[in-house]
């Protein structure tokens, strides 16, 4: 069985999330193993948030902001 990594995406609501929205309206797809967490600003991301993601079982993390 192929390994499908669980990716958590920490995204900024103003840029990356908007981009994801646009991509969606253009019917572009992304795998369902990616979960999005919306930040008001990715400047809020703390080292602890990243560690918690891995603790919760994420295999990888994408920060977009």
């Amino acid at each position, binding site marked *: 069985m192929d390994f499908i990594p669980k990716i958590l995406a920490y995204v900024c609501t103003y840029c990356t999330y908007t981009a994801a929205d646009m991509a969606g309206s253009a019917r572009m797809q992304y795998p369902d193993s990616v979960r999005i967490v919306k930040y008001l600003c990715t400047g809020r991301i703390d080292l602890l948030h990243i560690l918690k993601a*891995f603790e919760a079982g994420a295999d990888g993390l994408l920060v977009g902001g």
Partner: protein
Amino acid sequence: MIIAERKPFKEIAAAVAPYDKILIVGCGTCVAVCLAGGEKEVGLLASQLKLAAGLKHRRIEVGEITVERQCDLEFLEPLCDFVADFDAIISMACGAGVQFLAHMCHFKPIFPAVDTTFIGVNNAVGYYTERCRACRRCYLGLTGGICPVTMCPKGLLNGPCGGTLNGKCEVDLQKDCAWSKIYQRLELEGRLDNLKEIVPLHPHSRGTTPGTVIHPAYRRRYGVDE
């Protein structure tokens, strides 16, 4: 304040390896300011420990709590019941806090998560420098507010050694020679006469460890020595 540095993760992990239920106790005062053992660092360490255990297919329980000051009985006492549920304690306080916590919580193995470094100042977030050796005989009035015991690696009381080079210290040429600074300062203040008298040998007996200070008011009220 007290400055400390967090120990390498490997060292902490090795110390608590035998235990499945670990309580990490942070301290909200000095070590929080110097980013070594406050609430934030407790969270990071807890997460690190859980992840490291997970990689070894172990599940451990890590409790997190931060008290205002571990060196203060008032803040530490309420913790005692809380500790009962855990197999071991990691204290992120300075050496004083670790010992006080150990004293309060009998029969629980306790491990320090920081190396206590010195009494110093917070120049900027992340930049701390030593200022005081707690020598129990303060010379600062004589030396223009610059401590010869701390700021001179040799703790010389009567002037610079022969190694000072262009006002820098022989031990570390990046650092100022304490005695050059003391001289400059006293010269500016017109107090160079302070340096005429020979300072006698330092009374080390005062610094015999472990020290005790009893406030006169405490003594009056309780009439005891400890």
